[in-house]
């Protein structure tokens, strides 16, 4: 098959699955009104699939900081940190992340995806092993591939399965990087961190925890699952993203290992890409302060999350195992998921549709992401629509 024929085959498969004229993936958004509302076509919709957990995308402090940074330093850095230097904002944000986590050092990356690519490929290489949860995000899988290390998966959140694999490695467990996520992006459940840390210590491995979805969501000051469980010292490297709770774009890693800094010289996804723009850095710095002091935002977020989870659970929808801001409805077929997704959109609610092979174990998901900026009335309304759609979906 030629290169282009392969793409035609992909297009044909997608066309067979999806109804004509429905833009399911990359739906055009015409106008954005707030952290939770926008216009699709001529319809006002509620965002219930973005990862805007704390609703900070329109926070006045962040907008102001971004405006000022553009005026002061321009629209872009037009180059990498390595070749074109580190602006004061990049350096300050790295210090602020390190302080926030009470860690020795921090590095900022251009996206969260690149943070994982950079960290995994910087830490592990040919001859090493990466031991990853089966439900890991694509950035983890891609980082592993880029590293050239041997990639071994364990069953999702199953620490005895993980330990079995470490045991099989023998001495090689010492050159093994274990990777888990604070909150898993697909089903919204949390990693059994205490168990993972215990096992990784017993086998002298290194642990990287991706707090992409748990930053701002878990822990007293919003650091994530490590803070929530009091295990920050047991995790070697914490990565995360600016693109969810911090409402911008970029990624980070913090650690107490002094070697973290060396990644700046060896990690290709850090070296060979332009650094984050001044506006991005400035709004992220403002958002990080709001996140740290965001006890009230977290309370509202969790109240909304529990409310919607309990309602959908009560309606008989099959959900991920644990309540949280990522609420995944697990459906038996892509057709069913598509019907639910379309039904919600027809009622002005825009959520994520995840079809195989992107969904775990070949399932189809309709995934809601709750925000602190949602109101209790909006969660009620969403619950009512799910109740109404139930009959037609499961008939």
């Amino acid at each position, binding site marked *: 098959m030629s290169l282009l024929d392969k793409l035609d085959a992909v297009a044909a498969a997608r066309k067979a699955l999806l109804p004509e004229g429905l833009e399911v993936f990359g739906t055009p958004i015409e106008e954005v009104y707030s952290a939770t509302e926008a216009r699709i076509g001529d319809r006002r919709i509620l965002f219930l699939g973005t990862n805007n957990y704390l609703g900070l995308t329109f926070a006045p402090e962040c907008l102001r900081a971004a405006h000022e940074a553009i005026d002061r330093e321009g629209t872009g850095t037009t180059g990498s940190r390595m070749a074109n230097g580190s602006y004061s904002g990049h350096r300050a944000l790295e210090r602020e992340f390190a302080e926030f986590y009470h860690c020795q050092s921090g590095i900022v990356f251009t996206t969260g995806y690149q943070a994982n690519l950079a960290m995994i490929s910087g830490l592990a290489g040919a001859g090493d092993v990466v031991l990853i949860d089966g439900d890991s995000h694509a950035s983890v899988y891609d980082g592993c591939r880029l590293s050239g290390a041997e*990639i071994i998966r364990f069953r999702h959140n199953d620490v005895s399965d993980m330990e079995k*694999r470490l045991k099989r490695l023998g001495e090689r467990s010492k050159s093994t990087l274990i990777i888990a996520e604070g909150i898993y992006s697909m089903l919204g459940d949390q990693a059994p961190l205490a168990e993972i840390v215990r096992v990784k210590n017993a086998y002298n491995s290194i642990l990287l925890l991706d707090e992409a979805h748990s930053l701002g969501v878990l822990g007293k000051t919003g650091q994530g699952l490590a803070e929530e469980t009091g295990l920050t010292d047991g995790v070697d490297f914490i990565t995360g993203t600016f693109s969810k709770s911090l409402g911008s774009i970029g990624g980070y890693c913090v650690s107490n290992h002094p070697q973290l800094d060396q990644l700046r010289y060896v990690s290709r996804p850090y070296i060979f890409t332009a650094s984050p723009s001044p506006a991005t850095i400035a709004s992220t710095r403002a958002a990080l302060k709001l996140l740290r002091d965001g006890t009230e935002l977290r309370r509202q977020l969790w109240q909304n999350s529990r409310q919607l989870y309990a309602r959908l659970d009560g309606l008989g929808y099959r959900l991920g195992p644990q309540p949280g801001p990522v609420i995944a409805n697990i459906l038996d077929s892509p057709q069913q998921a598509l019907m639910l997704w379309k039904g919600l959109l027809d009622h002005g609610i825009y959520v994520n549709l995840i079809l195989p092979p992107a969904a775990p174990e070949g399932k189809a998901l309709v995934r809601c992401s709750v925000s602190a900026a949602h109101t209790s009335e909006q969660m009620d309304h969403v619950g009512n629509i799910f109740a109404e759609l139930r009959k037609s979906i499961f008939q």
Partner: protein
Amino acid sequence: MSTDYNNILSRLCFHLKQLSSPDVVIVPETDLINELAIDSVKLLSLVMEIEDEFDISVPLNVLADVQTVHELANLIYQIKSQNK
């Protein structure tokens, strides 16, 4: 090849039978993706079962090169003999 290999092959065929339609005949040359319609997600869960059964870990990297039933059986055989 050794009986070990044959044993692995027959256990593998047993697992594959469960995943494919009853009228398909599975031989060593059978193509996992094109003939048995085993997609990447199914293949990964099949591999987990096999890993348990043979007490091995199959790295994802090498799995990418596997196309036929024989290649998968041989891969398991190789990993198993390395561990001895």
